């Protein structure tokens, strides 16, 4: 019981980290960025290349890969989102153009890394086990949860307290009003993409390390989980995404333990479906989205 809970929290921390970036962009632009999963995947490959080929320590590779993820996000915004701004159907055309970028990113990863599963070298991380009560967790799992929580806390503080955070929130509220008040809207949106993609990239690196398997299509499964999380949490709400991420991780682990592993994915889609039908605004719906 305690063990399952721990495993659920561990899985949930990665879902939450992925979904926070997802929901941040949605909150600002009202566009679903379907290339988020490709950034997740590319950052994992960047970290892998840095550790395996450049022989860097993981602690150097992680921040570098996170920054790389953020920069890919800025590029993504520039190519696929900015040209569409102001178009009437921008939320559907943005969805499609981000899909196009996801395809391009995946093709690039396929060309460079091949379709097979890549793995981190054996000794990337010390294999140590920690006991918590009557449950056990690896040092790696504990660190992953720690890193995820710290990153999410940093994002929350950044949005709440800094000038940049206020600008991003202002744009989320109303781009036109923000522009009138002297906010550089393009820059605020680019920064939102940087933050979102950096967190998505961090989730990718941690996911790749935790399950020790990275492939060009690794993001696809996580993307659908991420959708379930942001719907459950309420579109655009960052605290909602955090809560829902952990909740989904825990629900999933318990489903696998109680019913069987083939029902793992059914649960997330069932959750997604039921929430959309019963309470489309999610746990912390619109009102909270304004604060995020």
């Amino acid at each position: 019981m305690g063990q399952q809970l721990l495993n659920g929290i561990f899985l949930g921390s990665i879902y939450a980290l992925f979904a926070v970036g997802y929901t941040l962009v949605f909150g600002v632009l009202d566009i679903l960025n379907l290339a988020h999963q490709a950034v997740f995947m590319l950052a994992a490959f960047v970290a892998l290349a840095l550790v395996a080929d450049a022989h860097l320590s993981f602690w150097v590779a992680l921040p570098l890969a996170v920054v790389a993820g953020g920069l890919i996000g800025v590029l993504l915004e520039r190519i696929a989102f900015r040209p569409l701004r102001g178009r009437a159907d921008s939320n559907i055309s943005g969805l499609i153009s981000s899909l196009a970028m996801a395809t391009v990113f995946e093709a690039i990863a396929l060309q460079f890394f091949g379709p097979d599963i890549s793995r981190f070298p054996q000794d990337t991380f010390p294999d140590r086990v920690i006991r918590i009560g009557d449950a056990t967790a690896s040092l790696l799992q504990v660190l992953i949860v720690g890193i995820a929580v710290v990153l999410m806390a940093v994002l929350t503080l950044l949005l709440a307290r800094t000038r940049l955070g206020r600008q991003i929130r202002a744009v989320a509220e109303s781009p036109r009003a923000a522009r009138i008040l002297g906010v550089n809207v393009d820059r605020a949106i680019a920064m939102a993409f940087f933050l979102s993609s950096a967190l998505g990239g961090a989730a990718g690196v941690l996911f790749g390390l935790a399950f020790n398997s990275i492939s060009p299509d690794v993001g696809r499964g996580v993307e659908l989980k991420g959708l379930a999380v942001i719907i459950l949490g309420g579109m655009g709400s960052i605290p909602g995404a955090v809560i829902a991420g952990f909740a989904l991780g825990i629900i999933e682990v318990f489903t696998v333990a109680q019913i069987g592993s083939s029902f793992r994915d059914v649960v997330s889609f069932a959750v997604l479906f039921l929430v959309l039908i019963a309470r489309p605004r999610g746990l912390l719906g619109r009102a909270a989205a304004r604060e995020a």
Partner: protein
Amino acid sequence: MTDLLLAYQSLFAFVGINALLALSVYATLACGQLSLANAGFMAIGAYTGALLTFHAKGLPFVAVLAAAALAPAIVAVPLGLPVLRLRGVFLAIATVGFGEVVRLFFVNWDFTNGALGLVAIPQRTRLWTIVLALAVALYVLGRLRGSRTGYALEAIREDETAARTMGIYTTGHKMAMLVLGAALAGLAGGLEAHFTFMVAPGGYRFERVVDWLVQAVVGGTTVFYGPVIGAAFLTVLPEILREAGARLGLAPGPFRMFLNGAILLAVILYLPNGLVSLPARLRRRARGAA
């Protein structure tokens, strides 16, 4: 001509099947709704068709195909009732969820061999069957254009609230197009199952809907034949460019993917109404230059 037809028979068949699927995505897009449940509808159609061929011996192929189209259409009604209240992105996400649930249902269903699926389905689909099915689909969608229903759909696409205010029964129209799209996807599923000899849950992943959406958008969603042009273009182009890619030292898989993504991006950014709007645009440009 006959040589060409024989040599590329399966390519033409896939163009036809993809065209039907792109039309199934177009059906809901025509009234401004992005529904991505079609892989699930296709799976239901394919399994229905295959099971009938196996277990109802002697049933004519036309009846099998009709059932393959009908089964997902029936499922679409209870799905549509709650889901069509959602708008835009929310509808897309809910329907993605539905599609995955259908796929996972077949993965877990022992009667159809779970993830392995059904194999050795007799090949009953001929090229002319596909052409005929596509012709019927185009006839139905073509007749909508300029009709009362067609104008209603266009009004809903442009502004749903305004359309409702004008007295258009928006829910009914949206439901009708969802059901029509489901039937088209199911028909394509039945055709494909009896052409490739097999059905397996892995063949109905979310990525496939994305392909059809891409084909519909690249072709153009403002007219009914746009998706067919998009499907033909995107199915044939990689075959033509395969040589060129190989010469550049690119593996065919990634190259094809890259091309798909790049074309989609270019179309959505620079040609929002798709390839069908290209001639008019070129003409306008030529006139502007002169």
